[in-house]
């Protein structure tokens, strides 16, 4: 056969198989096609392998572990964030289990203990009808969560804030930002590589607790001693908030109104725990037996009293009439249902019906009196009161025909009193030395006398002249040397500020904010200054005069600063020179050298900015507290 014939034959015989073979080779050789193939069967293979035995698990274990630890190493932050919502509850649950077991143990130990306190607490708990463990908790815990702040971790913006209803707070946005700033500061200043977070702070009675999540910080301000479990509760609330409002918290841009559902979550943290509330309730328990006894006792007493009252009724009424000033009784008895009385009566005296009614007689009264003027003291006083109509602030007394008047009244009333009193029967003389103008009138008189400056407020309270506001010291000296009118017993100037002091503080504030600028590296003052040496000297001279007026001694500390370039030693020298430059400029311009001290900012270790400048610290002390110099 010819070779081409043979080829032809082979072609006929094997062609279909050859084509298949070609296709197969293509599939094996092309990685992409192979991947697609495997992908198609992979899920089923994995499932089948799992069904059959555990070899697959064994094979995957190592690479998977590698994989996870690799990615944790690379970006722990992201990993932690992802795990946070799951891990929080999981860890808590296991801690809670451990805790429960521990509490049970402790509970048993205490229950079995026979210490007096253990027994007494047991008894109390039994009386209160609450579990012993709970009672122990109540005895030891007393706290109140006063404020809750939810703060965006990145910016310090306040996402939400709630507080106990009866509290007022500073601007909560500022508090939130300041918390974040301080936390940032602590983080930067005291921690190493590991980021530290501010978790708790004690501020006297208050405790601050912060729990941190990936996007937000929940801060609780607590009065008293919070239980450890509260931190867990805060953590739970924060986790729930971060899950529910994940997007809103992360992308919060200062618009609080967009998060109304947040408030109930935050409110749930405002807990109050009071000591022994249950016990107090049981003490007030109502006792029916006691109530029945009480009713019986009242009944017996009322019955006995009624009898006695019936018998002595008329006798007591007669006595009452006889005891009443301005009434002379000639006859009194009972006729049927009415009371019959005869006698003399001053018009100022109470009516017979009034006297009888005061003694419990509400039946008819048959009274007939002749008019007369009594000289009884009460009656004369009553007559004087009716004629003179004194204000409530005036008291009157009668002593051997002399009417004494004392207290505060309108000046006009006081001037008319003499003539009016002459027409009162029973008053022979009148004594007005105890009278003074009322506070309005008195205040007007004091005002004319003292001529207070416009910034001064005057008030009269119980004879004390209260002086407030601002005034020059010489004015107060004059006030204290003045004899004040009747009715002013003393002067209270504790809330009066001296104008000199006010001006003094103003100069202090200004001087302590001033920065004198130097050229970098140089110890001569720069050309342009916000505040010039001359301006400062002018205020210092004024300060000196004011301080003297107030009996204070000024002190001025001049601190030299330097910027970050140069060595420590060179900078300290430079700072000293700068402070000295300013000190001598001040002295040349007439500032008292004894006030002045200079120092280097770096050397003295005080806080302050690194800058080529000089700052001042001006204050005034009373000469007594002046530090002893050696």
């Amino acid at each position, binding site marked *: 056969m010819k070779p081409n014939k043979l080829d032809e034959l082979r072609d006929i015989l094997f062609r279909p198989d050859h084509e298949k073979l070609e296709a197969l080779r293509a599939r094996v050789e092309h990685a992409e096609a192979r991947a697609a193939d495997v992908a198609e069967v992979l899920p089923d293979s994995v499932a089948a392998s799992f069904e059959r035995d555990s070899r697959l698990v064994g094979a995957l274990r190592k690479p998977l572990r590698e994989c996870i630890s690799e990615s944790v190493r690379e970006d722990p932050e992201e990993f932690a964030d992802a795990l946070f919502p799951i891990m929080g509850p999981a860890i808590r649950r296991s801690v809670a289990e451990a805790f429960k077991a521990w509490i049970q143990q402790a509970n048993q130990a205490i229950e079995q203990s026979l210490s007096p306190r253990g027994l007494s607490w047991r008894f109390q708990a039994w009386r209160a009808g609450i579990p012993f463990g709970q009672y122990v908790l109540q005895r030891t815990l007393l706290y109140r969560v006063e404020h809750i702040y939810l703060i965006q971790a990145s910016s310090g913006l306040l996402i939400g804030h709630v507080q106990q209803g009866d509290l007022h707070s500073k601007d909560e946005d500022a508090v939130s930002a300041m918390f974040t700033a301080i936390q940032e500061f602590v983080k930067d200043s005291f921690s190493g590589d590991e980021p530290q977070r501010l978790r708790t702070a004690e501020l006297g009675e208050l405790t601050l607790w912060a729990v941190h999540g990936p996007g937000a910080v929940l801060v609780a301000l607590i009065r008293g001693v919070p239980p450890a479990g509260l931190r867990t509760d805060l953590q739970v609330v924060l986790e729930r908030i971060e899950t529910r409002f994940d997007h809103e918290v992360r992308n919060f841009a200062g618009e609080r109104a967009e998060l109304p559902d947040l408030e109930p979550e935050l409110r749930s943290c405002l807990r109050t725990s009071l000591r022994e509330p249950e016990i107090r309730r049981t003490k007030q328990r109502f006792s029916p037996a006691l109530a029945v006894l009480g009713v019986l006792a009242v009944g017996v007493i009322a019955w006995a009293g009624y009898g006695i009252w019936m018998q002595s009724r008329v006798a007591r009424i007669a006595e009452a009439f006889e005891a009443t000033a301005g009434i002379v009784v000639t006859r009194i008895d009972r006729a049927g249902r009415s009371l019959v009385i005869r006698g003399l009566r001053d018009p100022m005296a109470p009516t017979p019906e009034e006297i009888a009614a005061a003694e419990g007689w509400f039946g008819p009264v048959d009274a007939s009196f002749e008019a007369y003027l009594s000289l009884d003291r009460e009656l004369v006083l009553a007559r004087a009161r009716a004629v003179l109509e004194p204000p409530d602030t005036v008291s009157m007394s009668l002593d051997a025909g002399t009417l004494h008047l004392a207290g505060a009244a309108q000046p006009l009333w006081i001037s008319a009193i003499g003539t009016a009193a002459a027409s009162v029967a029973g008053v022979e003389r009148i004594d007005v030395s105890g009278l003074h103008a009322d506070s309005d009138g008195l205040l007007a008189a004091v005002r004319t006398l003292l001529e207070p400056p416009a910034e001064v407020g005057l008030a009269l309270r119980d004879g004390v002249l209260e002086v407030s506001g601002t005034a020059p010291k010489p004015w107060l000296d004059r006030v204290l040397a003045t004899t004040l009118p009747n009715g002013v017993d003393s002067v209270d100037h504790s809330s009066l500020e001296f104008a000199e002091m006010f001006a003094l503080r103003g100069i202090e504030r200004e001087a302590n904010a001033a920065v004198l600028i130097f050229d970098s590296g140089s110890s001569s003052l720069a050309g*342009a200054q916000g505040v010039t040496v001359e301006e400062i000297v002018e205020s210092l001279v004024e300060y000196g005069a004011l301080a003297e007026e107030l009996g204070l001694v000024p002190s001025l500390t001049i601190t030299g600063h330097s910027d970050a370039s140069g060595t420590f030693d060179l900078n300290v020298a430079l700072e000293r020179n700068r402070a000295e430059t300013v000190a001598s400029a001040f002295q040349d311009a007439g500032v008292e050298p004894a006030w002045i001290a200079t120092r280097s900012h770096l050397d003295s270790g005080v806080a302050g900015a690194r800058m080529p400048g000089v700052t001042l610290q001006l204050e005034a002390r009373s000469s007594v507290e002046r530090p002893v110099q050696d």
Partner: protein
Amino acid sequence: MRSAKVCIIGDFAVGKTSTVARFVNNEFSEKYLTTVGVKIDTKQVDIPSGSVKLIIWDVAGTDRLSDIELAYLRGSAGFILVADGTRTATVESALRLKADIVAQYGELPFVAMLNKFDLSDEWQIHHDELAVSRSAGVEWITCSAKTGEGVAMAIETLATSISDAATEST
């Protein structure tokens, strides 16, 4: 009401603290500035689109921001750049500070205040310097913390850009 964090930055003694003091409700003592390095004040600003409560962080920085000062800027909706018209160098450091911030946090709304205008007789700022600023995208608003001139206007301008930026992004 929207609240927004704002930082005020600039070289030493340009008048940052004075500017804030002139404008805000004082919340915390100045002592925080020396101890913690930052002081916070708030101010409600009424602008045409509503009210914005600015929470102003006064960072005790100088011509370069330290890491912590840069950290304080985190989450800011904008910033106030201050320079001292009597000292040309402070304009340069302001531009540098702005570049630092942009490198770290991207472009943010800001306002630039050229302070101590009450001393304008002694100003050393020349047209070329202002031209440099302009090419860096900074238009200076002249003002004086001493007299108060221009301060409120500058801060209202910032509040408006912050509010606009927030509306755009939502």
